[in-house]
């Protein structure tokens, strides 16, 4: 249960918003649930709804709208490569394609070890250092810019090592 395990964090999140407006805390709480469980499970959704006195529908309907929220399991690390126009003009589509080929997955797919998922995303505001990607995992979201196939593979190797440790 989130409420027991992350008591102080939940309290801090709720404190950010006026007491009457605790619905605002829904996205931070969903992020919390996602970090805890890897994705937002039906049980977590009900839990968040209860914390905020909302209907589960009001909470769960957000997941499909926002691209950083996931209700389905994927790799422990989601590698999200920007292939939007500015990055595409600097070779990002090619990078994404070759990276996936190297890993033996399709775009959007997950490696059989369950650690790495590679996805395409829209502009990340890192266009001057294109190609840019971000890694979404239990720690949050981190940027990696000026990527080449080599640097991306290195990054994935590091993540796989880290991921299989713990």
């Amino acid at each position, binding site marked *: 249960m989130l409420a027991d395990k992350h008591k102080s964090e939940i309290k801090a999140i709720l404190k950010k918003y006026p007491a009457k407006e605790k619905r605002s805390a829904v996205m931070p709480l969903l992020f919390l649930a996602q970090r805890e469980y890897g994705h937002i499970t*039906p049980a977590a*959704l*009900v839990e968040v709804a209860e914390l905020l006195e*909302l*209907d*589960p*529908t*009001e*909470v*769960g*309907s*957000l*997941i*499909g*709208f926002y691209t950083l929220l996931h209700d389905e399991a994927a790799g422990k690390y989601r590698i999200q490569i920007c292939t939007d126009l500015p990055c595409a003009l600097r070779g990002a589509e090619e990078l994404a394609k070759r990276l996936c080929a190297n890993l033996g997955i399709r775009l959007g797919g997950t490696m059989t070890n369950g650690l790495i998922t590679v996805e395409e995303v829209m502009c990340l505001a890192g266009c001057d250092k294109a190609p840019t990607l971000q890694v979404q995992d239990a720690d949050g979201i981190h940027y990696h810019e000026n990527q080449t196939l080599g640097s991306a593979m290195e990054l994935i190797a590091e993540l796989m090592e880290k991921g299989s440790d713990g």
Partner: protein
Amino acid sequence: MSQALVSLTIDGVEVTVPVGTKIVDAAKQAGIEIPVFCYHPKLESVGMCRQCLVEIGRPKIDRSTRKIVRDKNGDPVIEFGPKLETSCTTPVGEGWVVLVNSERAIEGRRQVIELILTSHPLDCPICDKGGECPLQNMTMAHGPGKSRFLYEDKMHLAKHVPLGDLIFLDRERCIQCARCIRFQTEIVDDPVIAFSERGRKLEIVTLSEPGFASYFSGNTTDICPVGALTTADFRFGARPWELNATASICPHCAVGCNTMLNTRREARSQGRVVIKRVMPRQNEAVNEIWLCDKGRFAHHFASSEERLARPVIKLKRRGRLTATTWENAVKFVVEGLQAAHGAVLGIAGGRASNEDLYALHRLMDGLGGRAVLHDQMAGGEFVQQAGVGPGTNLADLGSGDCILVVASDLHEEAPIWWLRVKQAAERGAKLIVANARPTRLDAHATHILRYDYGVAAHMILGMLHEINHQKELDQYASAETKKVAKVVSKANNVVVFYGSEGLDYAASHDLAQNCATLLAASGHVGRANNGLVAVWTHSNTQGAWDMGVHPEPGGLAAALKGQKAAYVVAADPAGDEPLLTSLLEQVDFLIVQGLFLTETALAADVVLPAQSFVERDGTYTNGMRRVQRFFPAIAPNEGMRADWEILSAVAAAMGIDSARPSAAAVMQDIAAKNRDYSEVNYPALSRNASQWPHVGGKDIYFGGTAHPNHQGLGVQLTPRVERQKDISFDWAAPRKIAHKPRYLMVPITKLYDRGTTVVQSQVLGPRLEILRLYVNPEDAERLGMIDEGEVEVQWDGRKQRLRSVIDEHVPSGAVLVPRSLGVPLATAVDVKIRPIAL
């Protein structure tokens, strides 16, 4: 209330409307149709479908002088904006020139409808909405001839998605207007459906458990402008143009929603005419254009195979029932009644119509007996005196007004009143909710009062004290009662809804009396939008009181003492209370009129098959004392008669009265005898007036598929205080509560019980309540009970085993059990509870 007015021209027509009116409504009033999809007059404007685009010209204003610029003729110079604007979101402005049918506006709307059609399947011939579909109509009127969007490029989506037990969604047909979602959030505060995803993937979802289970879900299928939402009851059942429509009144609760019964002959039912669906019929003073799901989906009992179809008699008590002719049956009844020599008791239920109740009363009178109502709740006479009068409409209550709801769970007992009271509170009315336990209305209350079961009337006296300062009332006053009494006395208008949760006959009598006295003392009677409303358990309980048929303090057991014959109409006392069975069996002659072979009927000497409300005409008087008419929608089986007709025949045969030819004639008798009903007659009940919003007609997209009301809005009775200036109100000293029982078992009302009229619904099945005993967590602990465990309850020498549920909303010391689910409990009783070891 006078309102500032604004004048403008729409397609050359000059219109004058109140400030704030949306252009689309102003156009509507001028007879100019602007197509809409997302806009609905009962919902907040969102301007999302963009279908209602028009050109708007505004008088040009000189920036420096801030005056209107005029041309050489002195006419204001009109400036049109670069964009078309949504008429559903834009309030009118003085001197504006709106063009609905200009070339540019027409072209703009044509483009929008073409865009809508890129996603929408063109499967009208197999769509439930075909024939009453706004999109279909609009495509005919404004759409492109053929699609430029290739069929194979369309997105293909799931077509039969159950959102719950009652409502199905066709994802392909949904045009994302959000009417259903907004209805659920804004109007009924049940946000169990929502949009998820985005862009073209935007879709309606429910993640609630158990899905789309709102009590009002059916309304979304009316206001859905396409065939995306359908009911489990009607989907693929018939085409709208095959249906006949007959006006009716919902028989399920005291609100008296106006309905339309859609019927059709059906091969499946051996060519009989059957009800295919129940639709709301507009009555802005009663149900607006809404219905609760019970009203919509619990109609199957009327066409049940188990209906009694021929009179039956039992020659010897406990002998076999044998079918007979009506002639014989009536003769048999007459003989039985004669033998009783005046020791007869009429017993009626609150579902009987005014005409039936009057006829019963008249017959009993003629025989020297009396007629009583099989019910536990009292206070009808106070509603007659201090009820809400003509001109009352809950929609008029808002800021500055006050509503008090006491001893009732409106959401379960009278859903449409719950909805309208909630909306009044949202408009700013102060809402005081007083009950022994929390109910859904609490969420909208400005003041919540709690009391122990049984002492509702005391609480009202506490409030009264603040107004009349009588010393004897000191004992009832508290800081809380003081506070809410101030709210009541300051309010412009006050309406009090009283119910009977946890109250017996005497306690509900006191409650009604004290509420009436409070209203009178604070100056809130005898005017529109002020007065007392009873949340009766049946559709015509108030009518019964008005016809002189009401419960007696000692209940049926006392009333039956010494009776030789009993005549039961539209009631099943033995089914409700098995202990009454032996008392009923003790009378020499028992006559039962009804729809089904009930427990009571099984004990009878004669059983007479009655017509149901769908097979005959008649009137009900709702809890607000509006008398309303229902009409025959289905030709009855030859063996059935209307209750009043049977009673009248018996009275005639006994020389008491001449037989009446029609229900209308009975109403004439009522009007002649009963001062309150002197203005009531069938033509008057059938009068209607124009209502806003306009529904029905060719522009069904405007209000949805709710039916317009051409059959009458009914007559709101005048409370006696308005006529008789000498009526005075006094409070009733509440009876002392002798002892506080350790555990009080309280029957509560749930909308979907298992009463005969509900349990036969073919679609409500999964939604019906399950019998459970609800216990407070501390009491459960003290008793050693577990959640979902089994317990034995004992009361009045009876025993029953029940599943128990631990529920923090139950007040301590009380255990709650829903009515009509198998525990025969009319009123709160002392119980012993014993958990059963596993």
